[in-house]
């Protein structure tokens, strides 16, 4: 197999799970580890890690919310890795944006490094990667591993956090295509889906559920109108907002017809014939 550029010559990469992959999204982690193993890549969970902070705080004057992400990056570096992969879109976005700050904002890093005086100084040298960026370079290998082609129509849903802000986007931020190419490589067909980077309503699900119900209705209806038989995502919160509240959407919108929602690693596991 050709080495993947983004990983250099290494076939093992430090893996940061995040809390949700150990609780509500266990199937995401299980399938990811298995399908990457099929592709010859070991996702090695770092020994110590902390909640990423669950969102990249936009309060630029409160550096406390950056500590957890920086600490995780230090742990990865300490264990000898220069790259860190994470599956959850929120963890990815938080770690990636914090790492950019570590590279660009000297004043902030002076404060953070002084505050964390029990840790070695951090300089932004760990690269944060999303697994879709690895797959983007491995579509031929993915195709070669398919045992049961998918034969269905899928809508690739990116949401916000894989694409915005554009500095951390894993793909073309206005019109990404990596998940569509993955779906096609797995033998499925990817439908045109204008709402693929629409926000799912995010944490509004906890305090303003109507907003999420509306977003769910628009997103799923749009996918369905374009012929999708299922939705594919990489974010546990998008997954929750699109999947778990469909009954409530049906109550608010009687014409609503739901769709199954999968993590991209779940459809890979199906196509690879990997048992859950």
């Amino acid at each position, binding site marked *: 197999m050709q080495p993947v550029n983004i990983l250099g010559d290494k076939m093992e990469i430090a893996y940061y799970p995040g*809390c949700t992959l*150990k*609780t*509500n999204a266990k199937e995401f982690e299980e399938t990811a580890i298995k399908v990457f193993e099929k592709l010859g890549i070991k996702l090695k969970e770092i020994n*110590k*890690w*902390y*909640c990423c*902070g669950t969102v990249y705080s936009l309060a630029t004057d409160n550096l*406390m*919310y950056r*500590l*957890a992400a920086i*600490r995780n990056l230090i742990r990865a570096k300490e264990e000898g890795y220069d790259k860190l992969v994470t599956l959850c879109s929120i963890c990815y976005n938080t770690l990636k944006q914090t790492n950019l700050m570590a590279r660009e904002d000297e004043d902030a890093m002076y404060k953070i490094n002084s*505050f*964390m005086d*029990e840790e070695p100084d951090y300089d932004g040298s760990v690269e944060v990667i999303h697994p879709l960026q690895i797959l983007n370079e491995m579509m031929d290998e993915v195709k070669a591993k398919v045992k049961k082609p998918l034969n269905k129509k899928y809508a690739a849903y990116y949401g916000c956090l894989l694409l915005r802000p554009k500095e951390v986007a894993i793909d073309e931020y206005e019109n990404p295509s990596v998940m569509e190419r993955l779906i096609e490589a797995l033998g499925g067909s990817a439908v045109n889906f204008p709402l693929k980077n629409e926000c799912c309503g995010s944490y509004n699900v906890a305090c303003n559920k109507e907003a999420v119900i509306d977003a769910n209705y628009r997103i799923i209806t749009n996918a369905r109108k374009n012929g999708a038989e299922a939705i594919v995502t990489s974010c546990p919160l998008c997954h929750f907002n699109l999947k778990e509240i469909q009954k409530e959407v049906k109550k608010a919108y009687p014409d609503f017809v739901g769709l199954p929602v999968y993590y991209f690693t779940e459809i890979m596991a199906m196509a690879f014939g990997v048992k859950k």
Partner: protein
Amino acid sequence: MKMVRIYIMGKEYRVPEGLTIMKAMEYAGYRYIRGSGCRAGFCGACATVYRKEGEYKLHADLACQTTVEDGMYLVQLPFTPANKAIYDLEKIRVDDKTLVNFYPEIARCVSCNTCTKACPQELDVMDYIQASLRGDVAKAAELSFDCIQCGLCAMRCPAEIAHYHVAQLARRLYGKYIAPRAKHLEKRVKEIEEGRFDKDMKKMMKMSIEELRKLYNARDIEPEEEV
């Protein structure tokens, strides 16, 4: 005798060097009514915070285990206000969310690590809170095993977490639902219930102190059984 200067709640005293903070305060005339227990570093009653002259760091420790140094600024923390969750261990179940449901404030942890720095037992306090947050009860129980509940973590936490109560719930859940049962213990409890030792106990209760002492010194020590 060489004397050192210490400041107790801001007032200067001279005390012999080599005393613990606890003994130094008693030497200076303070009497412990609360905030003192075993005097041996096990009970966690004598939480103390101090600064050293010319140093910005606030130290946290046990007054019975820390020796005074010249120029120390001292105060005792005999009690930590921290709310305890109410639960019936027989009725609750252990899953990913048990700890965060009883102590939702653990989700406020920003990984500042101040709790870890405050711990006189040198536990990885932040790590067990993080394990609790992701539902890893076994890990939280393991990492907090040596906690003596002094409360210093909770006093220092900017997220207002009551770490030691979370840890105690984790250990209780671990003991009740996760740890393998000790078969030899179950066997012994059954033997006790069936009255195997009743006769000997009755006999001993009639013995004099002298006889008991003799019996104790001559006792058999059982070898440890494989579990």
